[in-house]
């Protein structure tokens, strides 16, 4: 998008980039807002149907489409209360910290091939790092509420999220070494083609890793059966006890956006991201090839379809999370930590080693049936390489030059030293 502003509209580079950044941030905020709206509606409808009742069916037609809007308006008009014992600045700030952390993780999440706000070579690492910051808003909220119940809920949540980061990272690393890159766009692209290329089908260990990952993400975003911090029937509402109105809804938007984020991440890491089960747009020639550097309308449309595909997968993941929530009872906090340390971590570790062995010993895998490029996954390049190939053809971009732009697109292989007996 920035290239569009700078090249076509001849805006200066800083202005063009800033404008592009602003528009993309607004798009993400819009996405999160609409997603939260949709998910709240879905949650109420799904929970209603699971519980043998209708769910909202008055506001906005038979299916209650505008129920969430009505709820949002109600929340906006609520009195902005803070308890007497609360530390007002931190109390007010906490929901925004949570929301900011959740929103920032979207910066590195790609929605289609190349459609990512901040193309980072270590996108996955960045997302995992920022996801861990959400708990800080919760701790602040719990502490600053000035009530023992809120403090309890905040401490529980911190313990839970921090514990589950370990198996979560272990599971997230498996696709990384299967693809050889932390670049999420590249990971997604390496699963292009038929659904047999999806990493979840790579080997049985990765299949199990996906389920461990899913469990860890459910725990990480504090959904039932791991939703003790929100445990209504035990601690009233945990750290949320003293929050009402818009601030409460910010915490919830942060939770729903985190759910969407981790589902989207699961979709990219294991289910091909924007690449559908069938490579329709590749077959009809619309999708971009690796070597292309210019913009094409058909390529844009193919990417758009990929984005819709990706969002559908993410929403499906969120729906499964909701389904699980309304079915299972809640685990106690020590049981939650036990599940993490005694089940998730060893299982993740064993499957990590298994998947590693499978990859290293090059055992047969469904991924080999219809390889994405003739060289297999290794033929898909990381984003920075493609970007530099693109930059080679542009003169008005400040700050890009040097030998890297002339670098050919080849495999980067560390060859052993041939001379001097190979020191080091």
């Amino acid at each position, binding site marked *: 998008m920035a290239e569009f502003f700078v090249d076509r509209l001849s805006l200066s580079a*800083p202005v063009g*980039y*800033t404008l592009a950044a602003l528009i993309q941030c607004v798009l993400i905020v819009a996405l999160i807002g609409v997603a939260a709206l949709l998910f709240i509606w879905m949650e109420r409808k799904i929970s209603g149907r699971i519980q043998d009742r209708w769910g909202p069916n008055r506001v906005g037609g038979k299916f209650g489409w505008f129920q969430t809007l009505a709820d949002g308006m109600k929340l906006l008009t609520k009195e902005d209360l803070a308890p007497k014992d609360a*530390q007002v600045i*931190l109390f007010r700030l906490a929901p925004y910290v949570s929301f900011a952390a959740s929103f920032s993780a979207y910066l590195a999440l790609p929605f289609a091939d190349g459609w990512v706000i901040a193309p*980072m*070579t*270590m996108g996955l*690492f*960045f997302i*995992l*790092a*920022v996801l*861990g*910051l959400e*708990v*800080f808003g919760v*701790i*602040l909220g719990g*502490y*600053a509420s000035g009530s023992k119940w809120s*403090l309890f809920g*905040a*401490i529980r949540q*911190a313990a839970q999220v*921090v514990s589950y*980061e370990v198996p979560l990272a272990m599971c997230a690393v498996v696709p990384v070494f299967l693809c050889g*890159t*932390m670049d999420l766009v590249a990971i997604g692209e390496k699963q292009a083609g038929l659904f047999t290329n999806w990493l979840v089908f790579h080997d049985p260990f990765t299949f199990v890793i996906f389920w461990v990952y899913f469990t860890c993400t459910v725990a990480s975003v504090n959904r039932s059966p791991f939703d003790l911090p929100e445990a209504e029937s035990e601690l009233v509402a945990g750290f949320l006890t003293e929050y009402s109105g818009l601030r409460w809804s910010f915490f919830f938007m942060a939770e729903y956006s985190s759910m969407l984020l981790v589902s989207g991440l699961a979709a990219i890491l294991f289910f091909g991201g924007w690449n559908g089960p069938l490579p329709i747009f590749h077959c009809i020639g619309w999708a971009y090839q690796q070597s292309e550097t210019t913009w094409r309308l058909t390529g844009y449309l193919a990417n758009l379809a990929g984005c819709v595909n990706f969002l559908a997968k993410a929403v499906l993941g969120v729906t499964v999370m909701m389904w699980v929530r309304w079915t299972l009872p809640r685990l106690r906090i020590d049981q939650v930590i036990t599940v993490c340390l005694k089940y998730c971590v060893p299982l993740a570790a064993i499957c990590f080693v298994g998947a590693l062995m499978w990859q290293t010993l090059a055992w047969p895998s469904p991924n080999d049936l219809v390889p994405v490029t003739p060289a297999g996954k290794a033929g898909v390049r*990381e984003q*920075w390489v493609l970007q530099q190939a693109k930059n080679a053809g542009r003169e008005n971009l*400040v*700050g*890009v*030059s*040097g*030998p*890297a732009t002339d*670098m050919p697109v080849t495999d*980067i292989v*560390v060859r052993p*030293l041939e001379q001097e007996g190979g*020191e*080091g």
Partner: protein
Amino acid sequence: MMLLATLDWYSLFFLLFALLTCGFAVGVLFSDNIVHMAFYLTLSLGSCAGLFFLAGAPFVGAMQLMIYVGGTVVLLAFGVMLTANANFSSLRIPRGGWVVSLIVGGLLLVLLLTAALRVESWRTPRDEAVLPLAEVQTATVLGAGLTGVRVDKLHEDDPVTRRGMSGYLLPFVIISVHLLVVLVGAAYMARTRIYRRSASGNPRSRTG
């Protein structure tokens, strides 16, 4: 005016992040509520991560976020919260303390500045109109270095520096073992000691 003329977007963001980092660090010094201190420390370290991103090192920046902000400060906040008794919720530094800290801090600053200014390539500002971006943006170099192979020094000619080709494997392993020892020791020291309580619920005082 000349200063403003040299101000471009990079400098602006650098100034912003640097101000935030230093400002919140000063906030840590001057605030007297320990939870506020922990909060300011988080923000300071987060802005530092921003500085890393600006310098073109996204990996280190993300590591800063994950380890310092996500890990250390959460732990710090935890501990602060749980021990925030009346004794500690308001910390006031005596005047003598300010003097000592100014002296020690000043000495440290002088030491760092002299050390930094000794590096040749940092002395003069880069006067190329165009700054080259990092040639290789992967973490392969770093990762390979940690496992024992310095791939960025494959064609090193100077025999002295070729000795560093073995990478950082040994320090990496030493640090890992060290961390493991620290974790085990902390878990051992923090183990729960359960005292027997009478059936009627009268608590005996806890000692030790």
